[in-house]
């Protein structure tokens, strides 16, 4: 089988598997958000923390719950790392430095999983399992909870209640993420990923050297790392490490897992708003960008000009021999489009255009299909903007799913689309004015600039992957990127919840022939255009000085 054919087959099977999961999983998540029944375990949990599981919250209360929960998580995780040396299973590692502990705590709570450390040589098993892995579950659940509140804004009318955060958080964790993780962790173990409590093990390499490698509960963390679009690896090499991702099957499975929930959520949306076609329209836009990105990155990587690349047949630098171009490109496109940030190859070594696309993918705002929950709410905000402009062109004050988009709604949508670019651009701009910080680049010229741009884009969009190269484990970088992650995660959430509250208050307008249809191909094209132009216009100058300047020379 030729590599091309293998690549096409892998991608086709992937699409088939995702399509098969779309309806059942989407419907199941919709059921989680609408069912009035609690599990006995959940009821016990609510009693324990003193929450009334049947009382819905107004949006400010929902937001306060999100922020309080996340703040406590950050503080807890920070001190967990700082006190690591006194804890069990520390493997003898010392306490994590303050700036790195801050960065890591924020990183895992914001679902970014940016890692300025090497997992295997910094974190003990307890911190990995009870700290980082727990956040892998709950930070993902927070994202999904927020989109539930937004969808309720569309489905409810004349109410100020958008749901109960604690119930949403608990249900997503207990009924969705935990069961799926258990099942897929077992599959990963079966396919060769490790799961143990070993300390350092000496292994003899093929070329005759010897290495000390830490064992650990890898497979269990790997499953949720992908399922929750987290991306924080047990090992520094992330999914390129054979203990995390041993073979082409596990590689395929990991890609499947990181796309699974983001691609199923549009179904949840369609189901909850009572019109599955709305879900199909949204998922079409996501799929369009994903297919285009996978194809283009594969193309750029396969057709690289250059002595080394041509000798190897393609741009193989930084890619694992066992995955090759197709599986690496598929992984790279999927991980940067989903805010996962796990990597099975080094994006820094990609061709200028291929690497540029991974940056561009993140700049899209992690919406195609994006992070769990955050992808859908990001896409819905852009849909609101698209409907606003296009709705005017059909001669009505714009409405989406029967809800009018007035000044209040546009205020929140505008602030949302403003926030992340502001964080990326200001962060990058400031870094470039500081000669000391910018010296951390590995490369010079446009490629060095791309490394900085990539770092802030990844942090602000809560992706967490790195262009490698750049050294970010300094107090300045740890703090700056930590702040970028915080702003990039929680400011948009404020606007999304405010929008949800504002939508829920409205009485829906009935759809007529004069209403802009938001389920037809024309709308899919329009929304894609808005995504492309809004992003393209914002970042074009920066991209021109990085990947474009490098690739066009």
């Amino acid at each position, binding site marked *: 089988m030729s590599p091309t054919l293998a690549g096409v087959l892998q991608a086709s099977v992937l699409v088939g598997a995702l399509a098969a999961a779309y309806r059942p999983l989407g419907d199941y998540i919709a059921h989680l958000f609408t069912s009035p029944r609690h599990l006995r375990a959940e009821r016990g949990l609510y009693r324990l923390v003193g929450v009334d599981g049947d009382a819905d919250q107004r949006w400010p209360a929902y937001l306060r719950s999100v922020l309080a929960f996340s703040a406590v998580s950050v503080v807890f995780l920070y001190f967990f790392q700082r006190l690591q040396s006194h804890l069990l299973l520390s493997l003898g590692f010392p306490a994590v430095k303050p700036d790195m502990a801050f960065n890591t705590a924020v990183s895992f709570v914001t679902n970014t999983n940016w890692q300025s450390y090497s997992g295997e040589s910094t974190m003990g098993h307890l911190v990995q399992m009870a700290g980082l892995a727990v956040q892998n579950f709950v930070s993902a659940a927070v994202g999904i909870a927020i989109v539930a509140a937004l969808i309720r804004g569309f489905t409810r009318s004349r109410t100020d209640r958008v749901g109960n955060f604690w119930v949403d958080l608990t249900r997503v964790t207990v009924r969705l993420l935990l069961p799926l993780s258990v099942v897929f962790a077992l599959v990963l173990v079966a396919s060769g990923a490790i799961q143990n409590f070993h300390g350092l093990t000496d292994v003899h390499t093929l070329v005759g050297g010897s290495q000390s490698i830490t064992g650990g509960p890898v497979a269990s963390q790997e499953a949720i790392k992908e399922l929750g679009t987290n991306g924080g690896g047990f090992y520094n090499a992330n999914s390129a490490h054979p203990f995390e991702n041993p073979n082409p099957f596990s590689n395929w499975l990991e890609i499947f897992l990181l796309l699974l929930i983001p691609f199923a959520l549009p179904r949840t949306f369609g189901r909850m708003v009572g019109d599955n076609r709305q879900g199909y329209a949204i998922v079409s836009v996501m799929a369009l960008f994903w297919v285009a990105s996978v194809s283009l990155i594969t193309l750029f990587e396969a057709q690289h000009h250059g002595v080394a690349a041509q000798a190897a047949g393609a741009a193989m630098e930084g890619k694992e021999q066992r995955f090759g171009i197709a599986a690496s490109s598929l992984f790279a496109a999927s991980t940067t489009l989903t805010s996962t940030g796990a990597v099975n190859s080094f994006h820094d070594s990609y061709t200028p255009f291929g690497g540029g696309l991974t940056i561009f993918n993140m700049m899209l705002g992690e919406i195609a299909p994006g992070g769990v929950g955050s992808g859908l709410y990001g896409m819905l905000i852009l849909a609101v903007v698209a409907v606003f402009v296009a709705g005017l062109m059909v001669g009505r*004050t714009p409405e989406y799913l029967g809800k009018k988009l007035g000044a209040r709604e546009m205020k929140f949508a505008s602030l949302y689309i403003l926030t992340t670019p502001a964080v990326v651009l200001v962060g990058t701009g400031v870094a470039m004015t500081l000669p000391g910080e910018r010296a951390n680049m590995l490369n010079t010229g446009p490629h060095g600039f791309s490394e900085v741009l990539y770092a802030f884009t990844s942090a602000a969009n809560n992706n967490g992957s790195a262009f490698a190269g750049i050294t970010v484990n300094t107090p300045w970088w740890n703090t700056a990127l930590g702040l970028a992650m915080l702003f990039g995660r929680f400011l948009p959430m404020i606007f999304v919840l405010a929008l949800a509250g504002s939508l829920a208050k409205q009485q829906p307008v009935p759809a007529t022939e004069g209403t802009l249809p938001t389920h037809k191909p024309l709308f899919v094209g329009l929304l894609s255009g808005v995504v492309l132009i809004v992003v393209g216009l914002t970042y074009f100058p920066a991209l021109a000085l990085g990947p474009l300047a490098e690739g066009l*020379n």
Partner: protein
Amino acid sequence: MSSPSSLLESAPQPAGPAGPEPGSAHRVSGGLLDPRQLVASLPGAIRKLDPRVMVKNPVMFVVEVGSVLTTVSAVKDPSVFAWAITAWLWLTVVFANLAEAVAEGRGKAQAETLRRTKTDTMARRLADWRPGQASAQEEQVPATALRLGDLVVVEAGQIIPGDGDVVEGVASVDESAITGESAPVIRESGGDRSAVTGGTRVLSDRIVVKITSEPGKTFIDRMIALVEGAARQKTPNEIALNILLASLTVVFLLAVVTLQPMASYAGAPQTLVVLVALVVALIPTTIGALLSAIGIAGMDRLVQRNVLAMSGRAVEAAGDVNTLLLDKTGTITFGNRQAAEFLPTGEVTVAALADAAQLSSLADETPEGRSVVVLAKEKYGLRARSQGELAHADWIEFTAQTRMSGVDLHEGGGVHRIRKGAAAAVAAWVRDNGGETGGELGAAVDRISNLGGTPLVVAEHRDGSAARVLGVIHLKDVVKHGIRERFEELRRMGIRTVMITGDNPLTAKAIAEEAGVDDFLAEATPEDKMALIRKEQADGKLVAMTGDGTNDAPALAQADVGVAMNTGTMAAKEAGNMVDLDSNPTKLIEIVEIGKQLLITRGALTTFSIANDVAKYFAIIPAMFAAVYPGLDKLNIMRLHSPESAITSAIVFNALIIVGLIPLALRGVRYRPSSASALLRRNLWVYGLGGLILPFAGIKLIDLVVQFIPGLH
């Protein structure tokens, strides 16, 4: 409408046909832009450069601040390029102000005309007046001293000093000052024609008027304020759009401000002039410059159709209307019953019936009688004979008592009597004269009644023989030509039409089916109307209606778009949010279209403005960085001459496109009623794709010219 029974009487006569032919392109349009208007508005545009005014428009305020910065920069470090950019940036701001000034200028001219009518009128105030009392104490006071509830007397030749209701007398009034219509109208105490407007002139008779408005708040005062745009406030949708534009402006500002450190790292730090030029090219200046002009022009288009919208909010709401409540009379039908068909009975031929019907109707002066003569002429080619033409004929005129008209012809020895009239009356006449009224007649009469029509029976009686029935005339409410197609268009636009009528359900149903309305409300009382509006609104729909009577006022106030007829009472005019000076209920449809056109124009220019940025990037980015990264010159796909000429061309295009689009902003984009999908597809092609491509051509063309300017190459 005041009540079901008086519906026909009180309804205004239809003013012309049901609007232009359906399907005629470009139905909604405004006047053309006169280039002289641009020149005349220039001083106003310059005055608007005041930053305190500019700050209300965040996009253009950024351009103004940028212009100041480049001016300072050009003074400190002069070059042809710096001054060219500075000049064109200032022009950009001036052009934007010009658009607004031109839009306002059109209203100002109208306000001037109105003001001329508002002369210093003296009022004859009555001290103590009681109905029926002939002489009351009178005092002369200036019109401005009149207060609510004052009573004034106005006689022929005098100007009515303020808005009010006639409480005594009847007079013909010249309202041309407001409506532009020179034919005088009748105003009388009581009923729905009692309202008079200050500034109009009494032509005959004497009336006593009770003042209903405070000085300075009269109808004319409000009209002046409206057309001048003094009372103009941003509409909800305009505010929402402004927020989006402001946010895009901030994004682009950030993109450019943060570009400088990136550019310095690349070894190509940019001058202030270039950075400002990039910001201005990227922020949505086109729509930012034209936004307020579009709003003013939308109101103005209504004024040109003699409709006064009390707020821009109402115009926007008109575009969103889901349900139109239309009065049957005057809107859907011509308002009086007309002969539509002759149905002979027995062996009588249609021609014979038509002949008899015509003869018997010649002495009938009612509109129904006239319509019989007209039908006989148009459909059966029977020339309308005049009464003197026939010798030995005795004409029997129609009276409300006999409910018949006819003629007695003296032929030879005998008398040939022909009668036409209400079915019961003629049937009785036939029976009295020995004739029979068989089942065939009854069936024909019932059928017409069932269709909602009115049957008239024609019969004859010759001396010596029994009277006999000749046939039946079908009188019906005639639906206006072309109205059915308009309702179909409305349906395509997603608007439901509900016909309101005082007729019984049977008649109403027949007319509703013929006119093609979606629903009807028969035997409608004001309470029914109100209930219908509430029900529609409870479903989240927006409702538009017209009305003129005092008892319409609550419904007009409840409706999202309430258009009061100018002939109506002051209460109705106060309650509605628009007044139609022509009192033409059909205009409601046009109002909806103007509302939609206003929103489409905004959306189209926003799309155009954003799409423009792509080409500007391709002009400016290579110009900025090709020197350090020669590969970026591949992005210079327009092959612009030099970095300086490229940036200048982009800025010149950016400024000129504003002027180029002023006519479109004032006129509104082309609008034809169709489904949302069709509208979106068309507008996306024209303004989306057009906005993407046009600037490539425009910037290239400008570059071909400016490259010859020394200092730009």
